């Protein structure tokens, strides 16, 4: 995750507002409020979760790259398609539903690069359970850019990094 030496602080009120945004988002996802969740995203969203590559420290290629394979590399069209599948009655593997908990913590809020934008770092733990005994847990870091738009605060960019170079479960049937 990028380390910004010149992170510009924001007021406590602004920071609180961004924190509330992130916490509310987690609740919307846990409650399958997909449409409300989509409304919290900017039309210009880039939602990105690169695949993590297990490379040596000296390898200049680094642990992930924009042009390499990803779990998510989505704009609004892709996110809407994912939501459309969740909502189909024939999404067999979602009925009975997957039960989700999204925990969000380690939130830091700074001023963004443009006026009206915020840079937010956070960590998440997502626990999913299906059936009687299925349990999948993912933890990671996020780097978000939020923007004040006409209808309020929206998520403009999200970068999600998990520590796993191999996903230890069968899918990611949620958003992180």
């Amino acid at each position: 995750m990028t380390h910004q030496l010149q992170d510009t602080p924001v007021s406590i009120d602004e920071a609180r507002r961004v924190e509330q945004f992130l916490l509310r988002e987690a609740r919307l996802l846990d409650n399958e409020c997909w449409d409300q969740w989509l409304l919290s995203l900017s039309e210009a969203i880039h939602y990105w979760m690169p695949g993590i590559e297990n490379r040596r420290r000296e390898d200049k290629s680094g642990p992930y790259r924009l042009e390499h394979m990803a779990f998510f590399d989505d704009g609004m069209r892709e996110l809407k398609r994912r939501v459309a599948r969740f909502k189909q009655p024939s999404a067999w593997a979602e009925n009975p539903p997957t039960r989700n908990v999204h925990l969000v913590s380690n939130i830091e809020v700074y001023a963004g690069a443009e006026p009206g934008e915020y840079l937010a770092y956070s960590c998440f733990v997502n626990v999913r359970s299906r059936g009687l005994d299925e349990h999948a847990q993912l933890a990671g870091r996020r780097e978000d850019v939020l923007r004040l738009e006409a209808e309020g605060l929206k998520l403009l960019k999200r970068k999600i990094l998990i520590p796993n170079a191999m996903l230890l479960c069968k899918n990611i049937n949620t958003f992180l």
Partner: protein
Amino acid sequence: MDNNKHIPLRTLESTPALGNLDRLCDMQEGRLSGKVFWDEAIYEQELEKIFARCWLFVAHESQLPRSGDYLTTSMGEDEVLVVRQKDASIKVFLNACPHRGNKVCFAEAGNARGFICNYHGWSFGADGGRLMGMHESKCYEESQFDKSRHGLREARVASYKGLVFATFASDAPTLEEYLGPMTWYMDVMLDMDEGGSEFLGGCIRSTIECNWKIAAENFVGDILHGGWTHDSAAKAMLGGPVANVGELPESYSVNWNGHGYEFATDVVGNAATLGEKDINKYLHVLRPKVAERLGEFRSKLIGAISSFTVFPNFSFLPGQNTVRIWQPRGPHKIELFTWVIVNKNAPQDIKDKWRRGAMMTFSPTGVFEMDDGENWEYCTKTSRGVVTRYQDLYVGLGMHTRLDDSELPGNVFKGQLNECNARAFYQRWKDLLQAPTWADVPDRNGTLR
């Protein structure tokens, strides 16, 4: 293999075939027991008689452009290093030190001049895998240790149009013989365009708690599940259900030595699921050139509704361009290695659209694949029940649909809604488990129903 001066592999004696395989797998009748998905003893035999014997996919040449480029993967449960040599050839070594067996390379990919074991410092040249030296080498010299006999263990390697395969079995047939006429169909994916194909960067790895054969069988010839399992994804991506495969005018299932390909002739049926108009357009524009290159018939397959498995565990979907190995990890678990393949000469924006399209459809976050994983896990898990295993599963769809007068290569069957490829896959599986050596593996081509 250059390093034949090495201490030879001392293979343990071949374990006798399990006595009940004919009862568990009867492909004349199209019957199979779920025990083959659950049993530890069967799995141990698979490692020995299938994964240590067959030609296994290890890399695409495009992943290793420069001398010293390497990647790590596995052949069955054997971890291996795939390394581009100074003479541009590719070598495959066991990723295990011949001293105490520790792994010598822990990264998934990179570039190196050599590999040094973390335990006692034995170091191996990336070029040739020779043992170069070690920590406290003087004491080895004093005991007249012969370094030349202790390099990294090398596999047989052969390529087909960019795909690199390897085997540790000295008695295995050549890769050409192993793939047989299936290469004619593989060309649709690998050689539709001048310049051939390449893998895009990165590999998505994930796990599914299923038996490896269920995944391989799904790609060898099960489009039947497409219209039902993937209804939700098709509606999400296309705004409507999957094309009614049973009503397509011309489709086939073909197989050879357990490899299988089921396909329609609808040009872009698979590609369309990506929901990227530019990809369909690219394929339609390319098609006349493909017809010149591969003939009119194969030009209709370049992105058609289709799937392919090279026995035992290498699969791909033309059109979606997703490529897989299903790595066996015990009878109840696989690791999926997922790549995207594209034409090397395709424009960059088309390559990017394929990278994202494959991610959106057939990957752990893909809207299609989510419903597959669930099915495969529970086909495996129900088999833990003893009574469930007594139930003979039905693999009989399409019996008596063989087209003996077809001019297409391989064993050709009418229609892609057909379990003939699954039967050929399981027959090959059983033949290998029952054969003490490669010479004993029967040739079933021409006789399968």
